[in-house]
């Protein structure tokens, strides 16, 4: 910054940041409370239908629905059996170094999230591949890492996501990418070591399909669009998101 003669280091920057929090302006609380006081919770239509249809009817609908969606995706593509998918394994990928460095690191989170050894953190994101450890993957920025990948809502290529593989929560995720061949995808997914070959399938168009579970919180930020389908390529006007993700529930 021009004219700034002061040089910042960790210490004086932290001191400066401490206590820089803004106070809410006068009138904000009363403005909010005006909205709060006229707020009435919206009832789902099902709430009003419940007395008429009865609990039994609702249960019947749910059972039928579960049967339908457990046998096929919403696009009619059969969902492969996932009996062999290991339960409760968690993949966590952090591609936040990608935009600046042209590379990104992925790591498979250990069950203990407190772990700080190699495999986590910035050491991975910007260090040599040899220090990555077995769980991490280096790739070019434009290469999307497999599993469940989505564009960040801010439009940056930063993506943080968690994928939980559980038999009971499996869903079909279709990874659409015309930019990389099968071996590339398979290599990434295999490297991540949690999605094994039998569950990587291609459809007639060469798209990859992987059965995984969605860790719900990881897609919470997309709450406006998460329903039966998640589809975000058109929003990616920054970064290099070259793929599309569809989540079939």
């Amino acid at each position: 910054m021009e004219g700034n003669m002061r040089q910042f280091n960790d210490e004086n920057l932290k001191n400066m940041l401490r206590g820089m929090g803004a106070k809410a302006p006068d009138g904000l609380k009363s403005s909010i409370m005006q909205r709060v006081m006229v707020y009435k919770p919206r009832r789902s239509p099902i709430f009003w239908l419940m007395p008429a249809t009865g609990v039994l009817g609702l249960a019947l609908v749910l059972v039928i629905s579960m049967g339908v969606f457990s046998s096929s995706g919403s696009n009619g593509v059969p969902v492969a059996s996932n009996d062999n998918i290991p339960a409760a394994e968690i993949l966590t990928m952090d591609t936040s170094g990608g935009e600046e460095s042209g590379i990104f690191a992925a790591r498979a989170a250990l069950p203990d999230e407190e772990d700080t050894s190699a495999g986590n953190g910035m050491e991975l994101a910007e260090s040599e591949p040899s220090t990555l450890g077995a769980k991490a993957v280096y790739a070019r920025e434009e290469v999307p890492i497999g599993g469940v990948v989505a564009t960040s809502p801010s439009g940056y290529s930063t993506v943080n996501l968690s994928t939980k593989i559980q038999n009971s929560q499996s869903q079909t995720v279709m990874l659409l990418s015309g930019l990389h061949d099968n071996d590339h995808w398979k290599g990434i997914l295999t490297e991540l070591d949690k999605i094994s070959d039998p569950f990587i399938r291609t459809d007639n168009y060469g798209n990859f399909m992987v059965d995984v579970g969605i860790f719900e919180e990881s897609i919470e930020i997309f709450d406006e669009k998460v329903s039966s389908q998640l589809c975000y390529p058109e929003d990616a006007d920054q970064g290099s998101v070259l793929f599309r993700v569809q989540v079939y529930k």
Partner: protein
Amino acid sequence: MKPERVVEIAVQVSMGNNDSFAEIVEEYQDFVYNFSLRLTGNREWAWDLTSDVFMRVLAKLDKYSPEYPFKSWIGRVTYTLGLNFIRKNKRSVQLESLGGEINFEVPDKSETPDIETDRRMTVEQVNQAIHELKPDFKAIINICDIEEMSYKEAADILKIPLGTVRSRLFRARAELKEILNGTKKD
């Protein structure tokens, strides 16, 4: 605010006593507004976003689980709505000086007016530098360095592992220093 108290308020709200929600607004308005201001960089938008956050909290209050700190929960709502807000408005986001409403430590009585002026200018520069960061860097700086919340709370708000909190904070601070020291490469 203790989670149990939040649950009590949720019960009251469910019975139509929306007035009881004022206690939550009073307690967390500074936190939400400051976070919103950091994310949007604009007072008007921060006002709107703060208002939207509390309305979302009100609507979802019955979903709150007392096993989690309420501040993290409301922080998560702020971050989520803030990112959506930025996405919708990113082409028109304008940098606005925040210098007029930030707080900073009371200057040493021995400091001269010149030193105080210099401090104000520096704070303004830091504010502008934060605004140049990308949203997830702004968020981590705000949570960990400005609000001085724990890594665990940051992980809960941003829904990222602790290791990622550390790495992201490291990179955010590094970039902030580069901007401030004029060494950032475009």
